[in-house]
């Protein structure tokens, strides 16, 4: 695996959020250890197993906890000490932190008033529209489904139109349709210029649809960051696995071995075989050429371990 020593954060253009050698410990427990990264505009997924330190990182980003060591900068300031920044950050907490007796409209309006907005009802209406709920919904929040409660929490976090939106496990408890809607919403929010959304989750197949930029935290340390496909390409100690279907799989496999494009071949059914290659880019370029030169029909080339789930498993050893 191509690895680097603990580096300073790679600053993407116009980083909205930076952690510089941040550690956080609670007594003897080190929750976050020497983490450095930057987050620019768009959607970034914060991934990690349970107890990896994701929620602590999110709390540090929102100024809800102070780092034991290092510096956190959000929109160029320290969220722990610059209170004006809090009006530019929105947090969707993991906990069901709502006033269950209130209706969605008044609840979101309370959040707007807390942010000092001039027209709380109007801002609440706009925020609820964004999550496809109505200000006039008469049901108390306590009676809403889990998915709708989640939407209310998101609306409350969005009501002041924050530049940085932090969402802690927003997928928890949502059904597939609600997840689909939330993913769409997060993508739309992240697509706005100069805005970023940081989403922590361990529902990897859904996270993959947010976008490709990820931060992986394991045991309190940053394990990897960037586009997960690029991260996969950096794992040169783990050959890429691909499934190849062809009319004459044995002949094509032999030709690929002869050419030195693959490191290993395994039969996978009557019409297909799996290969292992250290250079997936070269393989994809050459497999068609080899098939054409040998007069073989290439039916299918499917990567088997280039998805986010595989990348995540490789990184955290799951």
């Amino acid at each position, binding site marked *: *695996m191509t*690895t*680097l*020593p603990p*580096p300073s954060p*790679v600053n*993407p253009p116009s980083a909205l959020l930076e952690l510089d050698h941040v550690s956080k410990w609670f007594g003897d427990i080190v929750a976050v250890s020497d983490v450095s990264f930057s987050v620019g505009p768009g959607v970034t997924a914060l991934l990690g197993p349970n107890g990896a330190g994701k929620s602590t990182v999110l709390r540090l980003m929102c100024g809800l906890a102070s780092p034991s060591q290092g510096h956190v900068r959000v929109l160029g300031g320290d969220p722990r000490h610059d209170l004006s920044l809090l009006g530019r950050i929105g947090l969707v907490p993991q906990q069901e932190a709502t006033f269950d007796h209130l209706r969605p409209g008044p609840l979101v309006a309370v959040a707007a008033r807390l942010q000092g907005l001039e027209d709380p009802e109007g801002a609440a209406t706009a925020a609820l529209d964004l999550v496809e709920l109505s200000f006039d919904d008469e049901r108390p929040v306590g009676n809403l489904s889990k998915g709708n409660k989640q939407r209310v929490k998101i609306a409350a976090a969005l009501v002041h139109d924050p530049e940085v939106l932090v969402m802690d496990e927003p997928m928890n408890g949502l059904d597939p349709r609600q997840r689909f809607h939330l993913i769409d919403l997060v993508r739309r929010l992240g697509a706005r210029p100069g805005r970023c959304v940081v989403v922590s989750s361990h529902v990897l197949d859904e996270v993959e649809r947010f976008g490709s930029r990820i931060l992986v935290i394991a045991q309190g340390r940053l394990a990897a*960051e960037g586009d997960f496909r*690029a991260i996969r*390409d950096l794992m040169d100690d783990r050959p890429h696995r691909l499934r190849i279907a062809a009319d004459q799989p044995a002949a094509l496999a032999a030709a690929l071995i002869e050419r030195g494009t693959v490191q290993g071949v395994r039969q996978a059914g009557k019409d297909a075989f799996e290969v292992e290659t250290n250079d997936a880019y070269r393989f994809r370029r050459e497999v068609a050429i080899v098939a054409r030169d040998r007069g073989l029909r290439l039916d299918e080339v499917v990567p088997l371990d280039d998805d986010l789930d595989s990348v995540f498993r490789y990184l955290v050893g799951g």
Partner: protein
Amino acid sequence: MSDARIIDRGYRVYDGVRRGPRGATQSLIKHTAQRVLGLRRPTRAKILPILTAAIAYVPAIVFVGVAALVNDTQVRTNVLPTYGAYYGFIASALVIFATFVAPEALCPDRRTGLFGLYLASPLTRDTYLIAKAAAVSGLLAIATLGPPVLLLVANVLQGIGPDGPGEVALLAIRVLAAGSVIALYYTALSLAVASMTDRRAVASAGILLLLLVTAAVSGTLVEGVGLPDWVYVFNLNVIPFELAFRIYGEPGNLPQLSTAALAVAVPAWTVAGAIVVWTRYRRLRVVR
């Protein structure tokens, strides 16, 4: 160019501040004190340290209360102990600490092999022992210095203490000297016995036997066989408190024993104990 990166989460060279032998010694003092006091350990490990503190401080608090509530000088004189006599109230606390608590500083490190790990750090055998002795004597000093200081401050505040700043300063020096002598004495004694074994229970039994046997034998030799009074210097249970009496200018319970003999014997036993520990650890074979 992609900004993706995978960070090596494996072994990393420590590039932070290195505090060296001084930092290692301070760290060991702190962690030894925590262990001896039972901090971050089960409740049963905290019982004896708490008992020691209670025995040491409760009499002082009661006496301060009596002095504050009773105005009759005659009653005060009869009820309140002298500074030298106060150690009689806390002798059991010191014996409990030296016997049952202090061996915790040395024995587990050898039994668990941690001593070898300590020697792989900037600590040497000497700095290791200095740290252990500092931790134990520091905790003992809380019991030997704290209550007399409390009495002194309370008496001064109530106007029944020594007259004038000079007298107060002299008494403070006596408090410091007596408390330090007793703390160092019991530290040396308990660590000397603890250095002989890696079993805490054996060390506790050994310290208890040493105190009881020397008291019985010296008493028998002087009072039964008729040997001279200086033989009392072998009564390890009594001589530190007798020296404390003399430091305060009080006759004590064994007035027949000369102050000079005590002034030699107590430091001598302390040094002897230290030499035993040092020699034992100098020769101790460390297996890593």
